[in-house]
């Protein structure tokens, strides 16, 4: 009996701990969502009446709208570049014998490990003499390098999971390399490539310090806009824009994770 009770107590403690941890995950987001609904001008707790004015105001707030557009342009361009180049690299690494495969993979993966601030400093070291610093193109290139690991790895994994007999079957039936790529390999790796694109976009869209270092004060992304408004006044606009950004990122990431899983399990 005593043993049974001790186990139940243990279970209760475990449940409480897990509950607190889940709360810890949700709490800050919930606080922001709650704060964004204030009718007041400041972020005080509790809020002074309910209103959606900060959300409706966002649509007409030029600095946030422009920053969001800039972020989307950078994110889509960077994701397109990193998916094309990373996907191509992964395809070559997975399909052919190469003398320096390890070095190549390490090169494509290592941006994931390096602290973003050191990547930013490195880009600046090149971009200052190239006159790419403080330009949109500079930020796009920087984010392409920063986001390349995800498309590379996801594509590599999709190709590694693929049944190699599919390709040889296509070749035996008379397809050439290009035809077999187009009709067999590409359709099978597509979900992973799309997932890689979304992950890369999400990473670029949410990235701050690389963009800040490369862009200086000339290009304003959404994270740069939020960061600089934090330094002046804590307006409820920031809470509203944060909620929108969290929702967008959450939906995209979960969708990409689902695609990536579907991509490698369907093979």
């Amino acid at each position, binding site marked *: 009996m005593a043993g049974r009770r001790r186990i139940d107590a243990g279970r209760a403690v475990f449940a409480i701990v897990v509950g607190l941890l889940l709360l810890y*995950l949700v709490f800050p987001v919930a606080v922001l969502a709650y704060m964004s609904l204030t009718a007041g001008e400041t972020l005080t707790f509790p809020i002074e009446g309910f209103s959606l004015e900060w959300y409706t105001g966002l649509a007409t707030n030029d600095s946030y709208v422009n920053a969001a557009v800039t972020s989307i342009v950078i994110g889509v361009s960077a994701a397109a570049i990193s998916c094309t180049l*990373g996907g191509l690299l992964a395809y*070559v690494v997975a399909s*052919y014998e190469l003398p320096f495969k390890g070095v190549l993979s390490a090169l*494509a993966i290592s941006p994931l490990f390096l602290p973003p601030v050191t990547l930013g400093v490195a880009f600046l070291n090149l971009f200052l003499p190239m006159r790419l610093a403080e330009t949109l193109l500079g930020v796009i290139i920087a984010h392409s390098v920063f986001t390349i690991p995800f498309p590379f790895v996801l594509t590599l994994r999709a190709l590694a999971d693929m049944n190699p007999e599919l390709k040889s079957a296509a070749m035996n039936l008379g397809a050439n390399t290009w035809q077999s790529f187009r009709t067999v390999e590409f359709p099978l790796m597509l979900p992973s490539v799309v997932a890689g694109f979304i992950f890369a976009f999400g990473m670029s869209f949410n990235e701050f310090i690389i963009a800040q*270092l490369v862009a200086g004060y000339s290009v304003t992304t959404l994270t740069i806009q939020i960061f600089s408004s934090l330094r002046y006044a804590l307006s409820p606009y920031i809470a509203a824009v*944060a909620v929108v950004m969290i929702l967008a990122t959450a939906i995209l990431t979960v969708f990409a994770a689902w695609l990536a899983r579907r991509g490698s399990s369907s093979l």
Partner: protein
Amino acid sequence: MGPALPRTSGKYLLLLPGAAFLAVFFLVPLCLVVVHSFYISPSGAGMYEPGFTLDNYLRLVQESYYAGRVVATLKFGIIVTAITAVIGYPLAYYLARGRSLVCQAGLVLLLGTLYVTYVIRAFAWSVILSDNGVVNTLLHALGAEGVSLYPGTWAVVAGLIYSFYPFYVITVFATIRNIDPSLEEASQALGAGRLRTFWYVTLPLSKYGIMAGSMWVFVLTVGSFVNPVILGKPRDWFLPVIIEQQVQQELNVPFGSVLSLVLMAIVALTVTAVARTVGLRRVWRQ
């Protein structure tokens, strides 16, 4: 065997765009960081002057402020990693073993917040911990004294843990998922209690996940810029903030490059050490 030759040259052609892009925009910049770390620091206008000097490295050793920042970087890394490793484990275990709806929702939530910008995460904690924020308002309502946490060291730690523990939980989650549940059942069938089973079966089998997850948290923490700036006082600023100041505000690229190399070395040593014991494959399968 006719197409052998075009296929061999074809693969190098396919390789070219990606390899060239990474060489020019990733390898060259990294090499320039090394080169510029020996350049002469600017006197007046300009970001650097070409030349060769060891002054930038000597400055790191001679000015105790910078050595102190290196120590602070490691300190934050270790504290945040240790706390995350302990508190993240029960959640990872629950998400991996539970089957309830809460469990599914928790996993989706965790994945969904994985890439939410650190700017917003830190901002949320500043709202929670500020003097008239959520925590203090609740404390006052309960009749207790308020606490002044923001800005301060523990606000930075709270923000860092919040920012990075999803990465830890996901990594450990994947490891626990791969442990065959029948091992745990066998242990219990042989008379071990839940606690004993956990201690002698589950925990040892998930140690590689714990190490890989902790490595991620450490690497992300020592590289974080946003959290210390938004949630901390200047004494809580460690290497990334100091690097940004040197490069963007002092316009001293050579010294910023030296500090960058120190930070990269810390990360490289950590990753290498963990990859050696755990195996690189496990480190970054999420």
